[in-house]
């Protein structure tokens, strides 16, 4: 049989865990509406990350490699502005502004994306 002290200990620890669990969920849900973080990745390495909701003045970031990409960051959105790669697929993708949006410059191995999950779909087949 458990002693009274054991029972209290178990209850206390379980309550603590439950509390922490609820708290972390609560924090996540609060973040969901506001936080919009974007990442610039090249050659599988993180170049820069932003909280797009906190960008006040637009900024251009240049990423060089085999080619050159200019990435425009504004409040709430990000895009490939210019590139000297042959296919221009990255520039044609346009603005990213929703969770889960992604644009890729394959020739320069550059990825820009907004962290999170798209609302209606998980992934696009192309």
């Amino acid at each position, binding site marked *: 049989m458990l002693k009274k002290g054991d029972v209290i200990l*178990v209850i206390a620890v*379980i309550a603590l865990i439950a509390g922490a669990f609820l708290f972390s969920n609560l924090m996540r849900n609060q973040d969901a509406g506001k936080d919009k973080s974007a990442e610039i990745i090249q050659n*599988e390495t993180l170049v820069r990350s932003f909280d797009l909701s906190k960008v006040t003045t637009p900024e251009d970031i240049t990423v060089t490699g085999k080619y050159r990409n200019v990435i425009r960051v504004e409040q709430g959105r990000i895009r490939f502005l210019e590139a000297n790669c042959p296919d221009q697929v990255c520039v044609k993708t346009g603005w990213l502004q929703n969770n889960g949006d992604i644009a890729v410059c394959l020739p320069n191995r550059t990825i820009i994306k907004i962290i999170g999950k798209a609302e209606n779909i998980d992934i696009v087949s*192309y």
Partner: protein
Amino acid sequence: MRKLKVLCLVLLISILTVSCTQVENGYDAQGFAMGTVITQHIFSANAEKITGKVLDKIKQLEKIMTINAPGSEVDFLNASAGNGKWVKLDPEIIYVMKKALDFGARSNGAFDITVGPLVKAWGIFTDHPKIPSPAALVQLKKLINYKDLSIDESTSSARLRLKGQIVDLGGIAKGYAGDVAKEIYLKNGVTSAYISLGGNIVALGSKPDGTPWNVGIQNPRLPNGKYLAVIPVQNKSVVTSGDYERFFMKNNIRYHHILDTKTGYPSDSGLISTSIISDLSIDGDALSTSTFVLGLEKGMALIESLPGVEAIFITKDKKIYVTSGLKDIITFTDDGKEFTYVEKR
């Protein structure tokens, strides 16, 4: 002593709880391999390690199968073309080539992995694609015939009949890699994940809440990521071939990367996009190219001959055709009503 046991138990519970919260949102990983971007989304406590393992494996497959960088095993096969000697190859290459020959026969040559000489002549996958002269294409077409590739499984070797013939696994290797990725997930206890290899999707299981994965089908005339339909899938591969993926424009003509080996030119079958939903991604990869080249009628006939395979075809005149197994689950999201949905059989 008992206190210790109780504490251990409580600690165990707390560790499990914490790891569960880490797994809850899934883990995303992106990398480059096989000339494209690989996206993985998996639910596992070991997500980082497992996604790394998968990317490494795909890079290893690329290394032995590519013809876009020197020194692969397939390069050795091509270099020996016509000299009569059998070339020993990795069993994985043998498996992929056997599958490719099977689809070559099923599609009556619409899918042909000996397309290499044409791919090289058009400069596909280079930064400088070009239009070969009609005379050059006539000569090169003589080299294209999947029946000239012989495979000896007992010795894990193969050979090409004519000098100058080139096997190009570009139309099937990503599909195979998707199947291998799924195996690695399963081997590591992952039950919920998807991987995209340049738009070839393999969905493992369902989402952690038990609902299916929602896969969007790219709108062939809008930028990457804009989709015109959504299909819910569980444990399926979704592979799409389109004329928008790799193309160049010259004199207002779109030259895309899916070559018709009968004409030597980019396929002009009336289809601009084909999506295949199947159990194996290697099948989907071969079939999306096959049907793209075969066109609507012959393509549909091929899909119907294969149990458990579904398809979505989009024609040049912007009509969408789907197989019967999809018509009740597909959702159209084409707000502009640019495309019309035609129910097919």
